[in-house]
């Protein structure tokens, strides 16, 4: 309910009558993501122009959010403000491109911010290609509220990312994860949700029972997770808006875990353990109908749908060592796609459909990796004592995962890495954190 309201207020509208320069042929400014960006693009983001007293109080934070998003993507380098020659005093004044060329800014962001007494915020923004003396795309106007200021910033940063890369952004998104406290042999776990950058952490459960591996619904409005609230691992469904949850099971003497939504948002695939054997099942949330997808004496777990819903990638140890398999979404014959040395687990299909991220364990180390959906072109992106549980950014360009350190004080944190293997960084959380699941872009 709340999310819908926000979405309505964050509407973007093209600014009318862009200046003449913007109508020229598009400049050469373009970031190509395929091979990974080695040299970040120099960008100048002068503090947005406050057009009234209310805006004075928020322009610094808003500018910072946009700057942090772009810089942390690894694609941009923000030119420090003390190098600026020009001051942007008015959003509507002509841009002195020569001054920005002189400090080698290839891109320039200008924005004007206006507020109203009721908390409404309007941001007009333009993206400039400094060396072609013009704009990249048209001016845009974003409307939001002071309470959702960071989302406004993420929306603007997504727009800039999208215009310069030609791909959708990922900044206006959330991550649901497990927040952890306490010693290694008595960890307390609770579900939490936050902005993708670690801001606005909110807890969804208390820490009275173990919770594991939350997974967003395709629209980001619900979360599947595993809880020990009954004393046994069982899959629950949580409504993010009302923060209420209920078990999916029928209370029979089985254990269920590793749930994930199908792209239709109605079917759930998960693992069910009975008599020591773990197989894959689906549950239709609307009808309650349960279907068994695998029946082998081996372990079948960690299922993930292809974006078109036609296939499921999962982990099985049917050969004796955990490997990755793909089968039709209705079950049936599975083909193994992992072929390298070591053990493979937790495969996750990219939202673009082109790659499968996975956890690999080999020679005493853990890796996050990605391979094509036929298993070819395997790439290991990380290496550490324990990396596991990848989740894709909504644009399929960044992977977030759990990294746990070694030893008696060992503890987990969230990290992210580009699918190219570049730009490895820790995601700041208030406590230990594990099992991230990235939402789609917010509406």
């Amino acid at each position, binding site marked *: 309910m709340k999310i819908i309201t926000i979405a309505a207020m964050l509407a973007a509208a093209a600014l009318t009558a862009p200046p003449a320069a913007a109508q020229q042929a598009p400049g050469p400014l373009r970031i190509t993501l395929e091979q990974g960006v080695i040299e970040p693009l120099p960008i100048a983001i002068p503090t947005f122009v406050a057009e009234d007293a209310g805006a004075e109080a928020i322009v610094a934070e808003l500018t910072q959010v946009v700057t942090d998003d772009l810089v942390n993507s690894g694609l941009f380098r923000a030119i420090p403000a003390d190098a600026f020659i020009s001051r942007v005093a008015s959003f509507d004044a002509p841009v002195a491109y020569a001054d920005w060329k002189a400090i080698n800014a290839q891109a320039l962001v200008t924005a004007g911010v206006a507020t109203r007494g009721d908390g409404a915020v309007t941001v007009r923004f333009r993206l400039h290609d400094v060396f072609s003396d013009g704009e990249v795309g048209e001016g845009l106007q974003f409307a939001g509220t002071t309470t959702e200021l960071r989302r406004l910033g993420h929306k603007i940063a997504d727009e800039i990312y999208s215009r310069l890369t030609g791909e959708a952004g990922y900044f206006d998104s959330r991550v649901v994860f497990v927040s952890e406290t306490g*010693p*290694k*042999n*008595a*960890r307390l776990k609770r579900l939490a949700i936050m902005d993708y950058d670690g801001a606005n952490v909110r807890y969804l459960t208390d820490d009275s029972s*173990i919770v*594991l*591996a939350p997974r967003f619904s395709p629209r980001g409005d619900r979360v599947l997770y595993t809880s*020990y609230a*009954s*004393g*046994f*691992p069982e899959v629950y469904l949580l409504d993010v808006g009302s923060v209420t949850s209920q078990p999916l099971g029928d209370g029979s*003497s089985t*254990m269920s*875990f*590793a749930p994930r939504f199908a792209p239709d948002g109605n079917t759930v695939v998960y*693992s069910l*353990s009975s*008599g*020591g*054997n*773990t197989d894959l099942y689906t549950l239709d949330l609307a009808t309650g109908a349960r279907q068994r997808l695998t029946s082998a004496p081996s*372990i079948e*777990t*960690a299922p993930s749908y292809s974006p078109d819903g036609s296939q499921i990638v999962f*982990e099985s*140890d049917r050969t004796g060592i*955990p490997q990755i398999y793909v089968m039709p979404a209705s079950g049936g014959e599975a083909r193994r796609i992992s072929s390298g040395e070591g*053990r493979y*687990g*937790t495969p996750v299909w990219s939202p673009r459909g082109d790659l499968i991220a996975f*956890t690999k*364990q080999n020679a005493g180390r853990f890796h996050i990796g990605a391979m094509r959906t036929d298993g070819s072109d395997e790439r290991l992106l990380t290496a550490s*004592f*324990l990396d*596991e*549980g990848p989740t894709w950014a909504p644009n399929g360009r960044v992977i977030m995962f759990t990294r*746990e350190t*070694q*030893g*008696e004080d*060992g503890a987990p944190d969230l990290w992210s890495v580009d699918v190219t293997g570049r730009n490895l960084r820790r995601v700041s959380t208030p406590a230990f954190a594990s*099992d991230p699941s990235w939402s789609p872009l917010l509406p």
Partner: protein
Amino acid sequence: MRPMIAATLAAATLLSACTNPTGFGPGSGAAGAPGAQGVAGGIVPGSASDPASAAYFQQTVGDRVLFAVDQSTLSGEARTALTRQARWLQQNPGFTAVIEGHADEQGTREYNLALGARRAAAAQEFLVSQGIASSRLRTVTYGKERPLEICSSEACYAQNRRAVTVLAGGVGSV
């Protein structure tokens, strides 16, 4: 003297078990931590000196079996331990048990949950083969969520790859 106490305890256990419709207590995440019973001289009901107590089962009979890396096969040592557990459970029919399966930290969360389920089931099946009614036994997997030892080397991992029989319903059960 001793059998009488045991019989009394068993009866009490049955009564208390009746108040719990499923016959199963909640799984104890801290299972395996040594009980804190003060053992002094004579038999204190429910304490480790009481052969019909959960504490006795845990400390003297032995409540756990260990597994090799990635395995759920019972070793000879494990079978001996489970045979002792079965004999005790036969002598103390008022108790039910939850068998917890655990894994070490090597491996993904999901795989370790499945592996813990296998280990718990292996212990359960052996106890059933020794004549314990399956209705008295339930299994739960904790995967790698509840390590007993916290170092990151084989010395600790070996202790963490375990199936622990946690009694429920008995006097003095933890």
